[in-house]
């Protein structure tokens, strides 16, 4: 049942889907070649994912807000919880798609210096996505599409400027963490994933709570 609700989101985003998938291959190569940083691959991937996810999610939210289809869905055996859960699963599905496409881009764009990402980097990217949508989804559930749009539009414009700084700062403290934690590298690689999933789940529970009191 959940997958059919995700499918609904894919149909709603249909118009942009193909363009976004091509973008997910082209953008990392382009951004990386322009940036010329040592860790440019990671930033290219993250920026691409963030843009793709935001554009698609926004497209869906816009239509949900306009047509109020969730009300009809909630008269069928689909539940309110399902509608919310599907949003999170959708974000995850698009993330995986972007990751796979990035790997394709890495093959094509090898000559531009685009490299494959470590498990750790992918985990960090997911964590950032998780934080971003972990805030966006509950806020949107609470305040509705229109109000939330403006808040996050400003945020998304700021990302390309603030992100490199954040990453640099993050990497500077990263070294400290490496020293502090006496656990094997293989497990440490998966820590960002674990935190990302945990954040996603917490955010989901909050959204479900907010949504259960909404008048559809």
């Amino acid at each position: 049942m959940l997958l059919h609700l995700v499918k609904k989101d894919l149909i709603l985003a249909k118009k942009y889907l193909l363009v976004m998938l091509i973008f997910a291959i082209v953008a990392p190569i382009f951004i990386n070649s322009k940036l010329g940083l040592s860790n440019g691959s990671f930033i290219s991937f993250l920026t691409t994912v963030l843009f793709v996810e935001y554009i698609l999610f926004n497209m869906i939210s816009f239509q949900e807000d306009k047509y109020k289809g969730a009300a009809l869905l909630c008269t069928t055996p689909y539940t309110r919880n399902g509608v919310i859960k599907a949003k999170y699963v959708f974000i995850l599905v698009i993330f995986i798609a972007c990751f796979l496409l990035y790997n394709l881009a890495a093959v094509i764009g090898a000559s531009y210096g685009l490299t494959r990402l470590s498990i750790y980097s992918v985990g960090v990217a997911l964590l950032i996505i998780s934080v971003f949508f972990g805030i966006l989804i509950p806020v949107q559930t609470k305040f509705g599409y229109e109000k939330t749009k403006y808040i996050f539009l400003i945020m998304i414009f700021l990302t390309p400027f603030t992100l490199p700084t954040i990453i640099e700062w993050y990497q500077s403290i990263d070294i400290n963490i490496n020293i502090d934690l006496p656990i094997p590298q293989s497990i440490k690689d998966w820590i960002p994933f674990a935190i990302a999933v945990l954040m996603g789940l917490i955010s989901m529970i909050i959204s479900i709570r907010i949504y259960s009191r909404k008048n559809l």
Partner: protein
Amino acid sequence: MKAVLEVNNLKKELGSFSLEQLTFSLKEGCITGFIGVNGSGKTTTIKTILGLYPKDDGSIKFFGKDMEKNEYEIKNRIGVVLDEGYFYEEMTLKEMKSIIAPAYTNWDESVFLNYINRFNLKLNQKIATLSKGMRMKFAITLALSHHADLLIMDEPTSGLDPLIRNELMEILLDFMEEEGKSVFFSTHITSDLEKVADMLILIDNGKIVFNESKDELLERHALIKGDNRLINEHSTKLFLRLRQTPFGFEGITNKVDQVCEQMKDIIIERPSIEDVMLAYVKER
């Protein structure tokens, strides 16, 4: 007759409007018309019993089972048509169906295709391009393709021409041919109900005014016409609603026997549902 829906002391506040202590039930095998003027609380009631609006208090039981605890099972047995459709307009009929259908355990594709053919709907058409009548037919198709036992519709006939309204009534009667089916639909066009309704529930300003068999209700009331001389302080009290013109009076009464006793030379007619509804609706 068993009750398919029992609502007890339902309460819901919505801005300045509120449903207060709403209590009513629907009988199995009946078409129940839910009438009231615009803004009387019909849509709020329907949305609240379906859980689209969380209730503030009270209980809602479908088929004798609590809605909150048996949501999945209950929703599998009801078909719903909402007033504005609530479709994703950009989708084609086929896409919309592909989302709705998997929700039901007993979706019947052959029934679905049957209705699609009967209504001349085209599966590859975008929902946004459907006319109002076609949209309603598509909504009904989606609501009736999983062998629902109870069909709930909010203002399905508003904005439709009489021909399509009549067609819809025929569909309802067809649906009712099978034993154990029930229909609950709200409307402010009471003429639709004259032919098909078994029970009538009137809501006004968030309160239930009556919940009664249509035939009994109309027999209990009468439309009285006569000379203005008959109207005095005493006889006025016999009427729920009285209209006087220089040519005579016209009134609705629920005290038919008393009127007949006390007034001579009057015309007694069977009232329409609208006559009775207006007699009970408070002017605002």
